[in-house]
């Protein structure tokens, strides 16, 4: 009992710390990666000792983004505009970060490990209604942006808040439909079970990942997820050229940093959702509990602990790769117009999602997997 409790607490903290450090990595990748793509140099000034510069080493901007930027943000003046609703203005950034942080806990990041006779599942909370929990917490993310826009007493902020609310509500529907078809495929709401269901191979070589059975749902969740993060090409709530910075225009210092952190944490969350639902979570192709079963009959035995740890690493690799993909989309595409955004959501993604659910239902019934 106690060891499970301690392990649960450690896993919950681990997951939140992992989410935060992934956000920090994404911040770095945002600065230097975008510079690389857009043929700029990017941040390359700050150093801790100046030693590397004197020795002629290139500055990679790591100090800039991981130390200098956050310290700058949190030491700036925390400004609340006149006429603003002080309480809600302060609450809003945390209201937008909190739902993302608590969503991390249901994501399975590995199989089980054996610690002194106790089998411990590598997910902070193994909920039977995990997928419902996800949808519930993601739905609550609306309020941070909405209240930030409203409480700032600024027209641009209010416009951004209204846009954010409408956009997130519209795309949540498509997101829910994409997740529903995966739930129907595996017949469970438990995320760990969904990942387990993606183990094994078809035809002797193709991993049983849901992306191969539900390619349409993968695209739907990718697009809807990108829209939920409110970033280019879906960054209408904060569009710099029209609304300056949209719903968090009146924020400075630490609270502004919390909004930016939320953006990156949401990006990491979307990558984790895509990995869990479609890319087999912690599954590695051809790796079973006892080792690699390569197509063609070759077999490589591995200890159970190594298999579990490799699963965790595989999960991280997939998440980081998807994060980078989402980042690259951001620096490549221009912004949608608002009517285009709404048309894509309601006339494109939602009907496609319903169609996908219908087809999935027929296939599930036809293959006789209904209890």
């Amino acid at each position, binding site marked *: 009992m106690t060891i499970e409790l301690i392990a649960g607490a450690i896993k919950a903290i681990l997951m939140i710390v992992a989410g935060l450090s992934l956000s920090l990595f994404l911040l770095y990748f945002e600065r230097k990666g975008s510079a690389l793509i857009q043929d700029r140099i990017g941040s390359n000034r700050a150093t801790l000792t100046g030693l590397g510069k004197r020795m002629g080493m290139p500055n990679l901007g790591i100090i800039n983004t991981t130390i200098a930027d956050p310290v700058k943000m949190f030491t700036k003046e925390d400004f609340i505009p006149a006429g603003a*609703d002080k309480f*809600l203005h302060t609450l809003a950034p945390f209201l937008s970060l909190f739902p993302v942080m608590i969503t991390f806990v249901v994501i399975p990041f590995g199989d089980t490990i054996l610690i002194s006779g106790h089998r411990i599942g590598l997910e902070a909370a193994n909920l*039977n*209604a995990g997928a*419902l*929990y996800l*949808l*519930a917490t993601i*739905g*609550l993310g*609306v*309020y941070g942006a*909405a*209240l930030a826009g*409203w409480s700032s007493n600024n027209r641009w902020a*209010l416009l951004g808040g*209204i846009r954010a*609310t*409408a956009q997130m*509500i519209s795309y*949540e529907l498509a997101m829910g439909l994409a997740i529903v078809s995966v739930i129907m495929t595996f017949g469970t*709401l438990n995320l760990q079970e969904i990942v387990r269901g993606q183990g094994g191979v078809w035809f002797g070589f193709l991993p049983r990942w849901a992306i191969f059975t539900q390619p349409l749902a993968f695209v739907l969740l990718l697009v809807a997820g990108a829209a939920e993060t409110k970033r280019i090409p879906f960054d209408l709530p904060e569009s710099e050229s029209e609304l300056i910075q949209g719903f968090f225009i009146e924020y400075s210092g630490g609270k502004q940093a919390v909004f930016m952190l939320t953006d990156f944490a949401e990006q990491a969350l979307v990558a984790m959702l895509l990995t869990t639902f479609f890319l087999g979570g912690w599954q590695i192709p051809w790796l079973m509990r006892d080792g690699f079963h390569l197509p063609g009959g070759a077999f490589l035995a591995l200890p159970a602990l190594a298999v579990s740890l490799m699963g965790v690493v595989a999960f991280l690799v997939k998440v980081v790769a998807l994060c980078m993909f989402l980042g690259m989309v951001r620096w490549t595409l221009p912004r949608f117009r608002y009517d285009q955004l709404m048309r894509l959501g309601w006339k494109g993604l939602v009907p496609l999602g319903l169609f996908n659910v219908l087809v999935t239902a027929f296939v599930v019934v036809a293959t006789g997997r209904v209890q």
Partner: protein
Amino acid sequence: MPPFLYIFLGALAVVSALGVIIQRNPIHSLLALIATLMTVAILFIGEDAVVVGFLQIIVYAGAIMVLFLFVIWLLNLQVETGPTGHLALKLFGSLAAALLVTELFFILAPPHLQVKFTHEPVGYGSLASLAGTLFTDYLVAFEVTSVLLLAAVVGSVALARRLPGTDDPRAARKIAS
């Protein structure tokens, strides 16, 4: 769910429900209502009605309350200044409220109040049992409700539709009627 947690959450729900009617600012009232819905949802989850609890958060806190937020924004509701109207109206209102509270007290006061704790079987609030009830015992009612909602959606779209070439939604309404 341990009793102290149950009492704490119940008290929280009551306090935030009071906040809904005490707050002068409509947005603050809305937030208090969201807090009420969330605490009740947690109570549901704590009592093993997991699916109902999460659906309450998804549907009410996540969607319907956002609709309320839009209504408040678009109607531009201001902070209320206090009860308005004739003195006699206020007096009559207070009297009616006092009567209602007395009535409630007599209904809820012991010995009429019978609290029964029943132990439901494990998993009675699971998705499987909920779906089983919804799609076997109450299938007809469920499907009829969905048709009714569909009719409402089609009707509202028909009413709000703008004909090509006109900016007047009334032209479409004439055709619809």
